[in-house]
């Protein structure tokens, strides 16, 4: 049996997905990128293989994606995270019907991808040089509030008052604004909600450039944050679906493309 790997090397996390010839997920994992990302990627890959009781020899084809895609030489090929994201989202969203728009928030970027009827990338847009409204922004907020990023969603849900307005979209300036708001005695919950709304608003502005259609598929680490999902649904005025494993959609896409490419190269997928 042949297996396939998609490795998404992002700025914050390394995501790896192993699939079999039937495109079923065999194993998946997320690990922090750290400063030795190449070593960390290899270690993460090896431990995932061990967990799935496989060896490197069982993996027929590896596709890398994400910011570090070109630097991971062990991969057979690399693909941009936009194409991989679209591919993975199509698969992950099977139970929600066809999707036309993908919103992805990564560690340092923000993407809106429009898909055509066949699930191919029709158009897309990304944030420019600035990291406003990305995962970094959420991390900064959590740090200032002395809580974990994973707690932000629950905190948002507890907000009773009106969400606070965060004026700065710049991560650096927003930090001082948040400290100021806290110093003025505002509640943490309203502040977190405010941060989510400011991100959601920025995303909806970006999404308008692509043109939102159909159901919106939301992935990337921050999609685990139910507060942000709620804010996004309100700002986009649409239903937003989040897959079961929002962090690994792009890696899944890379694995699927690895299988596709492998078949295309004319090799038998079975034993």
């Amino acid at each position, binding site marked *: 049996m042949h297996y396939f790997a998609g490795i998404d090397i992002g700025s914050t996390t390394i995501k790896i997905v192993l699939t079999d010839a039937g495109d079923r997920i065999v194993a998946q994992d997320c690990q922090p990128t750290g400063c030795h990302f190449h070593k960390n990627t290899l270690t993460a890959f090896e431990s995932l293989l061990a967990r799935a009781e496989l060896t490197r020899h069982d993996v027929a084809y590896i596709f890398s994606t994400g910011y570090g895609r070109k630097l991971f030489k062990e991969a057979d090929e690399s693909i*941009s995270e936009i*194409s991989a994201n679209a591919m993975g989202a199509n698969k992950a969203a099977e139970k929600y019907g066809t999707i036309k728009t993908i919103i992805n928030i990564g560690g340092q970027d923000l993407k809106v991808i429009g898909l055509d009827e066949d699930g*191919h990338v*029709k158009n897309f847009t*990304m944030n420019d*040089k600035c990291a406003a409204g990305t995962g970094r922004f959420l991390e900064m907020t959590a740090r200032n509030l002395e809580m974990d990023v994973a707690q932000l969603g629950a905190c948002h849900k507890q907000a009773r008052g009106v969400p606070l307005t965060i004026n700065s979209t710049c991560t650096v300036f927003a930090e001082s604004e948040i400290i100021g708001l806290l110093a003025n005695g505002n509640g943490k919950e309203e502040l977190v909600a405010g941060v989510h709304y400011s991100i959601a608003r920025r995303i909806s502005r970006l999404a308008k450039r692509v043109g939102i259609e159909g159901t919106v598929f939301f992935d990337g680490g921050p999609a685990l944050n139910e507060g942000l999902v709620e804010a996004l649904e309100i700002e986009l005025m649409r239903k937003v679906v989040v897959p079961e494993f929002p962090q690994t959609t792009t890696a899944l896409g890379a694995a699927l493309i690895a299988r596709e490419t492998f078949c295309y190269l004319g090799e038998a997928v079975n034993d």
Partner: protein
Amino acid sequence: MQSDADKRFARMQKATALHLAMEGEETLQHLTEFSDNPKAMDYFYDLFRNLYKNGHKLPTDKKVIGTMCLQVPDELIYAAGAVPMRMCSGAYAYEQVGAEFMPAKSCPVVKATTGMLHVNQALWGEAVASVVLPTTCDQKKKCGEMLKEMGYPVYILEMPSSKDSEGARFYWQESIKKFTLDLQKITGNKITSGKLQTVIADMAECSRLFRKLNDLRKSKTPLIFGKDIFLVTSAYFIDEMASWRQAVRQLIEELEVWRQNDIAITNRQAPRMLLTGSPPIFPNLKVPILVEQAGGIIVADEVCSSNRLLHDAVAYDEANLNDMAAALADRYLKPCTCPCLTPNTDRNRKLAELVKSHAVEGVIYQAFSGCLPYEMEQKQISNTLSKAGVPMLYLETDYSSEDLGQLSTRVEAFIESIKARRRKK
């Protein structure tokens, strides 16, 4: 005794020269690291290798007339015994100089051009007899005022902002006729109809060669990279006309042999791209190089540093100065698709035709941050292209290399989506 300001200026000159040499070398490295470049391209690689090596020297000993946009008829300058040199610069080092005294939001071409003239003034001042500025976009116009302030002899060539009416056409013809007279005063040489006729024929030969080169890009077998074409046309800005023609002729000959033997420069399946928008000028060939590194090939372009510069040719009816000046005026205004003109629907038509003639699969729209006309025309062009069923990638960028990572992700995704679209068909 050198004043502090002088010392500081000398330091800036030194730093700029160094940055320029580094930048030029880096671009050339990227250009040449593609395998199997045509032999005839070596002429152009060498030309630019030497350009910034020991300070940026003017390429000629003759009197130089600087031109700030492509609407200045080079023919008249040659006929007046001077050498035209397009001043639009693509150097980030010069842009950084310009950024010291120009608004941060202004376009990099204008910043780089002004910066270049500022830092090289002592070096070039004497040789540059005039800087001719057609009244195109607002930023160029204001940049002209700055150059005047620096002490450059700036010549304002009045151009209409619309080209459709007969009034606009005659206004421009009058501008060109006046320019013909004034040029003779600037250079001290008489422009005769005989001389002008010869120069027009020489430049028609340049157009003819460029069109030939452009026709070779129609070939199904990819023969030449867009990055090389942009280098060839960037060379036209500064090179001596006769040697440029000779080098292009050799390039065409080599490519003709390739075509006959069906030799491809790259993967035959490489997605065929068109580049439009803000001009790629050496050393800023960032976007073309990115596109071609990502596996695409630029088979056509619609930019003022390439196709728009060389495609059109002058046709006079009678060989007298009056008729030839009018013919020159028409050639530099009527087919022009500069976004400073309104309406500019000819640009849409031209793009649609290029897409057809060069079998283009995707369009890259490069807009320099700060160039509002190009940024604003994006919508209308994208509408035209989507009607024609051709996808377009809009890239807002500048001369810095900070956004390389972001740009390459976008370009790669775009090329991947074109390949996916092809599979679907």
